[in-house]
C-alpha cells in the first residue's frame, strides 16, 4: 500500500494524458483520505465531513495537477493534514467533541463484534498518542503513505519517520 509506488494505477496511465479521469482518481484516493481521518480522529461522521472538505478543496484546484499527477496524492494528503489541523485548532478553541463511535464493517455478527471491538481498542490506544505520533500512524496505516511521502509531508527526514513509526508501533504492540 505504498503511496508513491502503488498509488497511481490511474495516475500512471494518465500521467501523459491531457485530461485525467478524475472519477477514477477520486475512487482511488477517497479511501486513503477517509482512512487518514479515521485514524486521526475518533468520529466516523467527522471523518466523512473532513474528507468531504478535503476533496472539495482539491477538486476546485485539481486542474493545477494535470501536468503533475505523480504529486497529486501527496498534495491531497497535505490538504487533508491542514484540514485536520484546522479542525483540531477549532475544537480546542470551542468545545471538546469527539465521540468514540465506530460503525462495524460488513460481516457476520460475531465478526462484526470482534472487528468493532478491535477497532475500538485501537482507537483508544491511538487516542493516547502524542499528536505528531498519531498523525504519522494515520498517514502510514490510514492513508497508506510511504515513509518517503510522510517525510515530504511532515518535513521530517525519511529515516526519522521510520524511527518514530517503529517506536510508536512497538508501544502500541505492547499495549495491544
Amino acid at each position, binding site marked *: 500500500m505504498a503511496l508513491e509506488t502503488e498509488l497511481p494505477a490511474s495516475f500512471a496511465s494518465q500521467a501523459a494524458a491531457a485530461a485525467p479521469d478524475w472519477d477514477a482518481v477520486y475512487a482511488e484516493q477517497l479511501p486513503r483520505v477517509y*482512512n487518514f481521518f*479515521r485514524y486521526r480522529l475518533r468520529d466516523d*461522521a467527522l471523518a*466523512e465531513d473532513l474528507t468531504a472538505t478535503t476533496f*472539495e478543496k482539491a*477538486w476546485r484546484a485539481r486542474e493545477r495537477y494535470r501536468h503533475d499527477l505523480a504529486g497529486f496524492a501527496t498534495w491531497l494528503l497535505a490538504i487533508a493534514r491542514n484540514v485536520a489541523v484546522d479542525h483540531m485548532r477549532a475544537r480546542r478553541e470551542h468545545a471538546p467533541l469527539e465521540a468514540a463511535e465506530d460503525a462495524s*464493517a460488513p460481516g457476520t455478527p460475531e465478526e462484526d463484534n470482534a472487528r468493532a471491538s478491535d477497532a475500538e481498542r485501537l482507537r483508544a490506544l*491511538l487516542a493516547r498518542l502524542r499528536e505528531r505520533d498519531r498523525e504519522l500512524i494515520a498517514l502510514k496505516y490510514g492513508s497508506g503513505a510511504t515513509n518517503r511521502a510522510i517525510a515530504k509531508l511532515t518535513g521530517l527526514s525519511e529515516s526519522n519517520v521510520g524511527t518514530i513509526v517503529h517506536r510508536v*508501533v512497538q508501544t502500541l504492540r505492547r499495549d495491544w
Partner: protein
Amino acid sequence: MSDEFLNVLRRDPPAAFARRLRSRLHALDAPAATERRAPARAYRWLATAASVAALAFAFTLPAVRSAAEAFLDYFRVVNFAGVAFDPQRVEQLWSNASVDLPTLISGHVAISTPPTPPIAYASLDEAGAAAQMQVRAPTWLPPGFKLTSVEVIAAHELRVTGDTAKLQEVLTALGIDDLAVPAGLDGQVVTVSIPPIARILYDNGAKQIALVQSRGPVVSFPAGVDLASFAEIGLRLLGLGRAEAYDLAQSVDWRSTLLVPVPLTAATFHRVEVQNGDGLAIDAAAGENGGSGESMVLWSGGDSVYALRGPIRAADLLLMAQSVQ
C-alpha cells in the same frame, strides 16, 4: 515486528457517502456564471424540458424561498430550468410604469378552494396519510440539523380568467410595444388544482431548512393556447431583451418545464443530477453583492416535485436531496 493489528481500523468509505461526495464535487463543476455567459448552451438544455413562465415575474427576489414554494403550488413540473435576470432592470422597468399589478391580477384570479393553514403532524407517516402521498425525507442532514416539524397544506384550487386587453395594457405601460397578446384569451379559464403539500422543517438552532414536496399540480389550459407566446411575454416582463426572450420562448417545451428566474446579483444556478434525474441548484450564497443567503435545489421524481431550500450552500442541499428516500 507484526503491525497487522494496526490495519483493523481501515475500512472502505460508506458507499452512500462516496456517492454523495461525488455528486457534490460534480456540482462544483458547473458554475452558474458559465451558464449565464453562454445562454445558447442553457437554451439547448431548456429545449428538452417544458414549463410555465407566465407568472415568472412572481419570482423576483429577494424571495427565492417563496418562489420555490410558489411554483410547487401552481405549476405542473417535470423539469426545472434556470434563467438569469437582472432585478435592477426589472425594477426600473416596473418603476417607470403606472401599473398596479396586484389589482390587475386580483380581478382575474379566483380561488375556488382556498388553501388552509398548515397542519402539523407527529410523524412522516401521519403527514403522508393526510397528504395522500408518501412523504419522503433525507437520510443525511448537515451536521447539527434536526427534524423539527412536519406539516401539510391541504389541496386547493384556483382559476385564472384571461383578459387580453388588461395584459396588453400592462405591456404598453411597461413600454413593451413590439409584442401582441395572442387573441382568444378573453374569458378563457385556466384551472390550477394543487394537491396537498408536505413540508418538513429542519433546524440547527440558528438556521432552518425546508423540504417541500407535492404531487405535480394539475393545470388545465384551454385548447389552442399558445404557451410560447405567453412565455415570451413573461420573459419580457422579467426584463429579458426581445431576441433573448423570443429564442428562449421558442426553445422550451412549456408544458413540462418550469422556468425559474434567478436574479443575477443574488444567486447563481446550475443544472444538477438528483437521483438519476435532472434538477436545478440555486446557490444564493454564492451570488455577487451578497444575496438573500437562501439556496435551493429543485427536482422531480415519479409524479412528485421537490424543493429544498435553506441558508446553506446548494452543495449541501444537494447532498440532502440525493439522500431523500
